[in-house]
């Protein structure tokens, strides 16, 4: 093998790399927040919502979970303009991530809701709370606590999956890596470095989410 590794050539491109990291983090933060919010709403709709809403949400969830993220991305970014909806790269990337995470977190949160004992609902109703008040104040938080590890894993998975948004020229970390290697022809080194950075991001995110879980749910999970 006549290849000498040369990581120093990346040096002049560090700002590009750094910017890409920031964009990946930004995509993650926005995607996770709105994606989980959408997921909670959909989980409520599927588990406790009005009858007419259930098949709509079910259709959305099954569609997203049975198609690749890349195709969802292309459909939203390339396909929607032909019916009049124009999006920037970042908007397209964020929207797709929210819609994608929304479907997966819906199922995860729904499992948490369905693990709630009927007695909790009945206690809430007997105290005069409406069905929605009972969901909001009694059921939601323990449900989230139950599924927090699974939800955290899914968020990390979506973050890692976000690497493909570079395909619609959203300037995330993988886009930066592509850019740099097209300039300095050191593909292996830059992808290696980018992968290491993604790994660091994933580990950090996992720890952050675990800490967030401790802060949000200070008590041990019970039925």
């Amino acid at each position: 093998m006549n290849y000498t590794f040369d990581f120093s050539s990346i040096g002049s491109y560090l700002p590009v790399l750094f910017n890409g990291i920031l964009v990946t983090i930004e995509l993650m933060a926005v995607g996770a927040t709105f994606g989980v919010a959408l997921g909670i709403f959909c989980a409520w709709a599927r588990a406790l919502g009005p009858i007419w809403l259930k098949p709509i949400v079910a259709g959305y969830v099954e569609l997203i979970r049975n198609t690749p993220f890349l195709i969802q991305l292309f459909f939203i970014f390339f396909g929607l303009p032909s019916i009049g909806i124009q999006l920037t790269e970042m908007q397209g990337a964020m929207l797709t991530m929210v819609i994608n995470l929304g479907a997966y977190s819906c199922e995860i949160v729904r499992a948490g809701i369905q693990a709630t004992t009927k007695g909790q609902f009945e206690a809430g109703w007997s105290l005069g709370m409406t069905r929605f008040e009972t969901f909001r104040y009694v059921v939601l938080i323990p449900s989230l606590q139950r599924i927090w590890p699974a939800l955290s894993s899914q968020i990390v998975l979506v973050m890692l999956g976000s690497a493909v948004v570079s395909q619609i020229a959203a300037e995330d970390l993988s886009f930066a890596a592509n850019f740099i290697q097209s300039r300095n022809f050191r593909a292996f080194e830059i992808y290696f470095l980018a992968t290491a950075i993604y790994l660091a991001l994933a580990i950090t995110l996992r720890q952050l989410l675990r800490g967030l879980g401790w802060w949000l749910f200070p008590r041990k999970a019970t039925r």
Partner: protein
Amino acid sequence: MSLIEITEVKKRFGDNEVLKGINIDVAAAEVIAIIGKSGSGKSTLLRCINGLETIDEGSITVAGAQLLPDEIHLKALRLKVGMIFQQFNLFPHLTAGRNVMLSQMVVKKVTEKDAEAMARNMLDRVGLGHKFDAYQEELSGGQQQRVAIARALAMQPMALLCDEITSALDPELVNEVLAVVKELAKEGMTLLMVTHEMRFAREVCSRVVFMHQGRVHEIGPPEEVFANPKTPELNQFLGVTEH
């Protein structure tokens, strides 16, 4: 006029007719024990009174207002009639104090300050004022049930429905809960209790209802019902249970 009027109530689950025409009138400050074998419909009847189960025929009236299955009527009903469950059903993510405060703030739109004052008051009343900040796992079964009673009392109901509230407790914890109920009865709270505690029923209740296969088989003051059972079914039931 009675506080709670149950007239010709029928209820079926699928093919199974669980309540076959129940007629009971409950006056204010009455303490009624409902006894009978499992499957006789006791719990179902109780759960119909606060709308957790819908009735198929008949009517239930509480304080003059008829029980109708829509959300508005149900909510109004549940403000008048509280329920205590066999499994306590405390909210695990909240302290005892906040358990008692929650529905006051959410349902009755009471301010947090007032809700907290009421909560401390009610917890004191059941003997658990010092456990305001305790979570469910720090409380014994008897304490949890007493918190559940405080929680229901904080809504200032006219009547309390008690669905086998001591059945899930270890024997040594039963008395602390029954003591609280006894106090409530003395203070004039209207109580409907599905219970297996015959001694308690005899001491505290004004009337005993014996249910059998979905009907009220016998009804009367405890001295009569326990001492002179009129029907063979009640006789057999009393023979099997301690009384």
